[in-house]
């Protein structure tokens, strides 16, 4: 596990998250939770021209799940739906700059799984196996 799992940057994001809130004009929203640790997350997505126009999230949980949600939603705005579909664990590790380790990986991937499910839902596509495994 990286030494800087609680680096200032992630704590900053946890304290003052980007894109926290709901989107009243969202095209789709998806809710997920992790009953083991109590983390909850809803992601709202607005699509336009085959890309993410806006994305927001609501939820509660640990520094890793909430900090990652803030950073992820900020990083995907303007990206095409195909680009979102292609995102995986390595992208999350790069995004937050730490390897959360096996015990906390589910916390780090909760927002990515939820976002990807929203993108599949918007396109009326079945969620792919890679996303289910997140």
């Amino acid at each position, binding site marked *: 596990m990286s030494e800087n*799992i*609680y680096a200032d940057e992630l704590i900053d994001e946890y304290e003052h998250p980007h894109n926290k809130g709901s989107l009243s004009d969202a095209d789709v929203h998806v809710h997920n939770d992790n009953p*083991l*640790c*109590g983390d909850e997350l809803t992601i709202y997505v607005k699509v336009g021209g085959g890309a993410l126009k806006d994305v927001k999230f609501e939820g509660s949980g640990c*520094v*890793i799940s909430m900090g990652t949600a803030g950073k992820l939603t900020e990083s995907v705005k303007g990206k095409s739906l195909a680009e979102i579909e292609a995102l995986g664990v390595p992208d999350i590790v790069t995004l937050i700059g730490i390897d959360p380790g096996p*015990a906390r990986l589910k916390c780090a991937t909760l927002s990515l799984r939820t976002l990807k499910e929203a993108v599949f839902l918007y396109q009326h596509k079945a969620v792919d196996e890679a996303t289910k495994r997140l």
Partner: protein
Amino acid sequence: MFDAERIRRDFPILSTASHGKRFVYLDSAATSQKPKSVIDAIVDYYNTYNANINRGVYEISERATDAFIASKEKLAKFIGAHGIEETIYVRNATEALNLVALSWGERNIKSGDHILITEMEHHSNIVPWQMLAKRKGAVLDYVKLTHGMAYLDMEDLEAKLEKSPKLVSVTHVSNVLGTVNDVKRITKLAHECGATVLIDGAQSVPHMRVDVAAIGCDFMALSGHKMLAPTGIGALYGRRELLEAMEPVLGGGDMIRSVSMHGATWNDLPWKFEAGTSNIEGAIGLGAALDYLDGIGMDSVREHEQELTRYAMDRFSEINAVSVFGPPASDIENRSGVMAFAIKGVHPHDVATIFDREGIAIRAGHHCAMPLVTQLVTEKALSRMSFYIYNTKEDVDRVVDAVGVVKRIMRIKD
């Protein structure tokens, strides 16, 4: 004289380091560590007398059978049962509770009957009854909590006993709150209403003197791995008359007296409920664990844990950001060494991860008690530390230091 430092040295794992620091293990409510004597007993069995039991006529089989039965005799004595007929070996407390549901429950619970449990139960003492109630069309009732969600509401218990439940199943000690329930009184009240009484002893038998005869209960479930023994061995205590009237759940070898093409007759207790080759190493490990605990004395175990709990609550009371659940320090008599706590503004998983990096193992999550934990906190999760014989005041001091680290990282001001 209780000497936790000397006891620590009997547990090889406690001399290992975690993240470069002396390892502090505070998750014994999940599973305890094992002393060298238990590990050696298992190794000795495999090295010198590994054989199946209750059948071989050769020397090591007899030796294995003797060791297996000696383990049961020790357990019967340890919990105040009349003999080995009353101690059924199972995998763990969960299996013991399920055995009652599947055997006694299957025969005795009918449509419209009430089953009474409480809001402080572990999932293992909730889900089997939900399943049984669903199969039978029975009603599952819960005794509420009172006084800051720390105690069973005895008035509510008495009100619900008026519905004449067929079964009352209650935990002796809460694995979240640390509350020690007055199971003797609960058993008496329940028996007056005609109920059969099952006590979940998973969190009490390892930590205090428990006597099923003094309590008067009909069944008790316990897990070996929470009391120094290996995983995969636990027991159901049952009153002999009840066990004799019950049907086995699993059929196979060992549990029969004779088999013909058309049917079979059941073996005597306890074998009737122990189909197939038993967990022999587990039983031998449990026997060694009971020897170890007897060597210390359960009253000393309890006293040591109360002292640590009092000290920890005292130290936590100095930190405004920390709140502790369960009975207050002033009621240590009704509290075990299980302490669920919260640090204001910090998710329990972050607490546990930061503690881990300080070399301290604690539990975070819903503690398999979602109906309780979701009522206690909005985060649906709690941090929990739990003491055993090998913990020391120094461990508590390390925890207090780690809380300081959490506060610094998470920018918590008192």
